């Protein structure tokens, strides 16, 4: 189970009110980063709009008597430049130039990118053409093109930015196209089509609403890129000398550096603060719209709550695995620890199969991962004890756990495909696992197993788990084999180290019924051969009935009932177990009531018979 869905499940069982209907704007104005940078940007825009009011001179007004005058000169609050022009006026008008640049470039990029993104993403036939078109645009060396096209744009920054808009459009196109492809695959779009909703309406109502967020974020960054590019080009000298812009001012100031360093300081500072505010505002916007982004997952032993100590108590002599009062919790957004596993206790004897059954959110997978020590970083163990052969596992460090995994305790996942690294061949997976099993805490691989021996064993295992052509499968990539085959490979990998305990988490749920039966047979056979104990995590009572000796029923993080399989099926004690058993669709219940068409025919016959009788 992917970490995201695991955490979603946790969220669904922790009952805290979620702030669902608070709009993006509401959340944005509560984010200090957005408020501060947003205010700066608004001030900049106002400064630009009021340029003629704030400054006493025009941007190109030249005062020959006041060349290179310092800050604070009357009439020239920020001084004048080498040609006697008002620095403040030029600065404020530069903001306008930057804003117009951003407006032109971003609008073009958005219009072109969104239009083609929607078309290319929604209409399957046009995928190829649009992709091709935009990969061409992306290959243009943008800045070089803007420079060499000066004969056509005549250096006018508006035309330059017009062209630049096209050059930026692939970024928007890619976002919109990918989002659209994703949404167009959603079943609700199919449902809308079935309801007779037209393509245009689907595009506007269903797809644009999803694409909107990422596009708004992208716009913020496009704006920044356009402003910086315009500044860079103006610095180089592209464009009219009449147009005041940050780039031109920096260039002038740079040449006048030794005489008047402040002339150069003002435009750089303004441009720096301006573009930094845009990026920071864009980041805040992204966090607000998309929510928290995934955090790093460290490969480390499961965290314990502060002051945790494993529950002491007499060890059960017969138990291979002994879980006592295990508690697993996640922090809610409010910072409260919510237990999703609330004191689970289990015993597992050598060679036996225990079914851990429950509905979604019952905590069965969390319990399994807790025993294996591979819970997500967000999880914390709150209490209890997990012992294998009497040795405490809770609180053990990763190297110690690693030495146990593969050789003492092993795992088979639910979804076979996502659990194989797609870039390696099957053989590589198996050889790696075989060599890892039995390695000591400080060893990378088991020194007793050579590469050649591992390969030999891998081929043997593939044959053992019922793969028809082991040699070919050994040299295949995961995407080249079927789901059933991939699950056999994972089982082969899991039993490679001859573990004493196998934890199988819904190992057949993703598979077809006929394949499920074969996989269950395989697990049963391997278990008998190796005298392996199995924990079968499942939601399916049929699977439990097939393979388990004992069963533990989980509900909301607790085991509500545990017992020998036949006893629980025949005589369930807990209400929840009874309810679950009652919900099973009985094999013998077959729909009896006839369809309306048959009733109609029968009614007609009856009426006809009555008529005949009366006649």
């Amino acid at each position: 189970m992917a970490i995201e869905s695991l955490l979603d499940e946790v969220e669904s069982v922790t009952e805290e009110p979620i702030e669902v209907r608070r709009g993006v704007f509401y959340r944005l104005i509560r984010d200090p980063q957005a408020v501060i940078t947003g205010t700066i940007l608004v001030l900049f825009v106002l400064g630009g709009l009021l340029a003629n009011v704030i400054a006493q001179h025009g941007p190109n007004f030249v005062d020959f008597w006041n060349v290179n005058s310092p800050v604070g000169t009357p009439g020239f609050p920020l001084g004048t430049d080498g040609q006697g022009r008002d620095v403040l006026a030029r600065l404020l008008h530069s903001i306008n130039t930057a804003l117009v640049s951003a407006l032109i470039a971003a609008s073009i990029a958005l219009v072109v990118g969104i239009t083609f993104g929607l078309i290319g993403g929604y209409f399957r036939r046009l995928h190829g053409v649009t992709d091709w078109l935009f990969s061409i645009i992306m290959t243009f060396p943008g800045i070089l093109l803007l420079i060499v096209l000066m004969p056509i744009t005549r250096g006018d920054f508006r035309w330059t930015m017009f062209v630049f808009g096209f050059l930026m459009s692939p970024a928007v196109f890619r976002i919109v196209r990918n989002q659209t492809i994703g949404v167009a695959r959603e079943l609700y779009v199919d449902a809308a089509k079935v309801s007779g909703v037209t393509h245009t309406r689907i595009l506007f109502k269903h797809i644009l609403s999803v694409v909107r967020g990422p596009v708004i974020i992208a716009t913020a960054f496009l704006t920044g890129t356009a402003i910086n590019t315009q500044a860079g080009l103006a610095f180089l000298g592209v464009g009219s000398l009449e147009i005041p812009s940050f780039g031109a001012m920096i260039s002038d100031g740079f040449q006048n550096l030794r005489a008047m360093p402040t002339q150069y300081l003002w435009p750089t500072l303004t441009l720096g603060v301006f573009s930094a505010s845009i990026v920071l505002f864009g980041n805040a916007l992204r966090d607000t719209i998309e929510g928290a982004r995934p955090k790093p997952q460290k490969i480390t032993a499961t965290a314990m709550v502060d002051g945790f100590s494993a529950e002491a108590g007499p060890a059960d002599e017969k138990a291979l695995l002994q879980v006592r009062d295990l508690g697993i919790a996640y922090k809610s957004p409010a910072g409260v620890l919510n237990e999703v596993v609330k004191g689970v206790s289990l015993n597992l004897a050598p060679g036996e199969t225990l079914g851990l059954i429950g509905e979604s959110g019952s905590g069965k997978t969390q319990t399994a991962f807790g025993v294996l020590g591979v819970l997500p970083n967000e999880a914390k163990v709150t209490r209890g004890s997990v012992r294998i052969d009497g040795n405490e596992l809770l609180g053990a460090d990763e190297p110690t756990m690693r030495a146990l995994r593969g050789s003492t305790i092993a795992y088979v996942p639910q979804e076979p495909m996502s659990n194989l690294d797609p870039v390696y061949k099957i053989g590589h997976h198996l050889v790696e696992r075989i060599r890892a099993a039995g390695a000591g805490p400080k060893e990378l691989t088991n020194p007793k197993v050579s590469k050649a021996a591992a390969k030999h064993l891998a081929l043997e295992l593939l044959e053992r788990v019922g793969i028809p052509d082991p040699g070919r499968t050994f040299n295949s990539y995961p995407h080249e084999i079927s789901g059933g085959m991939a699950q056999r490979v994972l089982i082969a990998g899991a039993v490679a180290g001859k573990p004493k305990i196998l934890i199988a988490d819904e190992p057949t749920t993703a598979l077809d019924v006929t394949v499920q039966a074969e996989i269950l047979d395989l697990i049963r056979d391997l278990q008998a051969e190796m005298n392996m104990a199995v924990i079968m995590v499942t939601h399916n009572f049929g699977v439990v009935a097939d393979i388990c000796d004992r069963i533990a029923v989980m509900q909301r993080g607790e085991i509500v009932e545990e017992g020998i399989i036949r006893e629980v099926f025949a005589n369930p004690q807990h209400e929840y177990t009874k309810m679950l058993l009652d919900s099973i669709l009985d094999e013998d219940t077959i729909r009896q009531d006839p369809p309306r068409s048959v009733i109609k025919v029968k009614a007609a016959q009856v009426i006809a018979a009555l008529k005949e009788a009366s006649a």
Partner: protein
Amino acid sequence: MTAPILAAKNLQVSYPVRGFMKKPIEIVHGVDFEIGEGETLGIVGESGSGKTTIGRAILGLAMVSGGSIAFDGRDISQATPKIRRSLAKDIQVVFQDPYSSLNPSLMIGQILAEPLTVQGWSRADATKRVLELLDRVGLPRNAAARLPREFSGGQRQRIAIARALALSPKLVICDEPVSGLDLSTQAKVLDLFIELQRETGVAYMFISHDLAVIRHISHRVGVLYRGEMVEQGDTAEVTGEPRNPYTQRLVLAAPVADPDRQAERRALRAQMFAAA
């Protein structure tokens, strides 16, 4: 028997393949079936058998490459978008995944009203109908102003059923509508399907991989294997005394929730394999 509302003859369905000038791949190789008024035809098969594809072909979401689908006697296999729009009143769908089948950014009321407004219902009429539908599927009326993520999987599936029934269709394609649900919810949603059928006389094409579900709801069953209908008939016959070897395999592979009977079944299965 009265005339069927849906009849497929030698139906072939293909999917286009990515890439220039590549030939489409045929998924369904000529199947025949009929669905009568108020009847449930169960379609059972494994992944890749083409069962979902048949459903999508009837809905106009997949390309019919041969044969015909007659609805009320009229061939709809090559229906134009315009005809499709008028068919929306009569043929509807409930999908497997209740998470992906409701637009997360629309409120339940908007979702339920969509098929109505497309058919030109007035706002007032549509609102009235939405509330009626919510009552019918057992959801509170204030659900209309909430977003899909505020509901559980079972509740979402009820919403999807309400949407399908909004226009009182004659046929609903149900594509694994209970597979994603928990055991305790599954039975309740199935019962809702049956109740609604008795009340409204709607016909179902009920697609599932789970024989127990199929038995529970179907009057008749078709077994699909690699794009071919290998067996078809009354539910009791097909699932009780299957004649086709594949159906036999399927029936024996499904585990029973009874340890003793399951042990028997397993032994039987082993025998069959030994014989084969």
